[in-house]
């Protein structure tokens, strides 16, 4: 713990782990680390997309902008919904592999070789 008036390194401190052993989700720990990085990057790309949208909306409205404008921007209801829909679609794109695995679980398709063999016969 820091002294009361010592300056804090907020970047370093913010990454502190929670007490309690973290479950291993994968046999290879590299995969656990990789998930952490990939989805942190996913959040960053999402934030970048939102920032880009803010810039475009401000330019549309005023033809010019400042950083302060970007920081102060709050979407109205319609813009909030448009951005929400865009984020939803973005999440759907990056998560397609997971979503299609759920679909595949439901469908229980046979191996493709089964189909290849059947079509060669029938």
């Amino acid at each position, binding site marked *: 713990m820091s*002294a009361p008036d010592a300056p804090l390194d907020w970047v370093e401190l913010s990454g502190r782990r929670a*007490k309690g052993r973290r479950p291993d*989700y994968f046999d290879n720990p590299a995969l656990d680390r990789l998930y952490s990085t990939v989805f942190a990057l996913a959040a960053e790309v999402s934030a970048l997309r939102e920032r880009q949208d803010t810039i475009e909306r401000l330019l549309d409205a005023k033809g010019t902008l400042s950083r302060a404008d970007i920081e102060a921007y709050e979407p109205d209801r319609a813009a909030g919904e448009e951005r929400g829909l865009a984020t*939803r679609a973005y*999440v759907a794109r990056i998560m397609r592999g*997971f979503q299609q695995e759920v679909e595949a679980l439901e469908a229980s398709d046979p191996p493709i070789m089964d189909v290849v063999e059947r079509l060669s016969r029938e």
Partner: protein
Amino acid sequence: MAKDLPPPYTALTRHEMMPRVTHDEAARFNFLTHFNRYLSGTIGAGNKLAYEKRVLPAFRAEHGRDPEHRYEVRDAMNRDAWHRMWSALKRNSMEMRQHFGRQVVLRQLDELDAMARQYNEHSGQLELDPAIEQPHYQTAVDIHCQPGGYHGEERPGDVTVGANYDVGLFATTGGALGGLNDGGGQAVVNWVKAERPDWSPKRILDIGCTIGHNAVPIAQAFPDAEVIAIDTAAASLRYGAARAAAMGVRNIRFVQASGEDLARWTDGHFDWVQTTMFLHELSTKAMPRILAEAHRVLAPGGLILHIEQPQYSDAMPLFEQFMRDWDAFNNNEPFWSAMHGQDLKQVMADAGFPQDAQFVAGVRAVVDPAIFPPSPDEGKEDYGRAAIWNAYGAWKPLAAETQVAA
């Protein structure tokens, strides 16, 4: 807001103590609200499919019977590739929520600490007691994977954990708790006002209040009452008291105290004793001690009310119990499983509340529907996260009734 979209972070009410967010910090939380909804909704179904299509059949083949306990389901599911991936995603989402929230709070901690000090010095609404020790069930792990738990400090007297709790609740619940994260407290108020429209409690105790987000709406709804909100964690109370003062709510005091020892209050002092999402963060020995103390300080005719996720019962499928248990093992909620497995009615009865004085009611978060979407309903239940709860309560019998019953 369209039904299937969570509101943007900027829809939150920014009271004076609420940490300020930059454009991109808000955007990161927006990502998490969508990501969490996606995990529980769109791909959450994969867990049940994996269970029914391969995990359960494999279990039956191996054991010649069905699982008999949620832990057997858990052991089997923890070997399933899909459930492991899904759990890794969800764990990472929780960790990102903490990291993002801590970046927001820590970079402006000087301002937040100074503001909290100022509010708390002037309001008189904060009473700390350094003699209060953190109970072992609060320190064994950092609950919710929140670094520092509810009590940790980055430096003496800071508000980091309280402020971080406040900024991130939105992302964890997908905005389901409303603009002030107080949908739970508002739900309690609505239930009480519907149940006893003419009741006007004068003294109300909230045990385990953390930052008071569920106690403040009670104080607002009963302006003539005095609300005492207690917690063992000074770091959360400092933020909570300043938050209430910043919101202009004066009839609530934040007192550092343990629910296990309410000796400073006489028998029958309170008309209403409330806990909200608190019992599952205790231990098997602490819970009955707290309930017995709650019974003692509650006046005859008074109300005790606990808001919790539903208890497990034989009627609840083992798979659902297992899913509801996820946070116990993956999100540092170590009493969650044991607590929800208990017969709460019996535990309450042992604490002095007769079974026939008890009730269970369903409540859901009260939010402004113009801005905030309703909590996902049963079909898309985020096991253990949805802002739909059970209220376990009792009206404490008047002395005469107790004698008749005896």
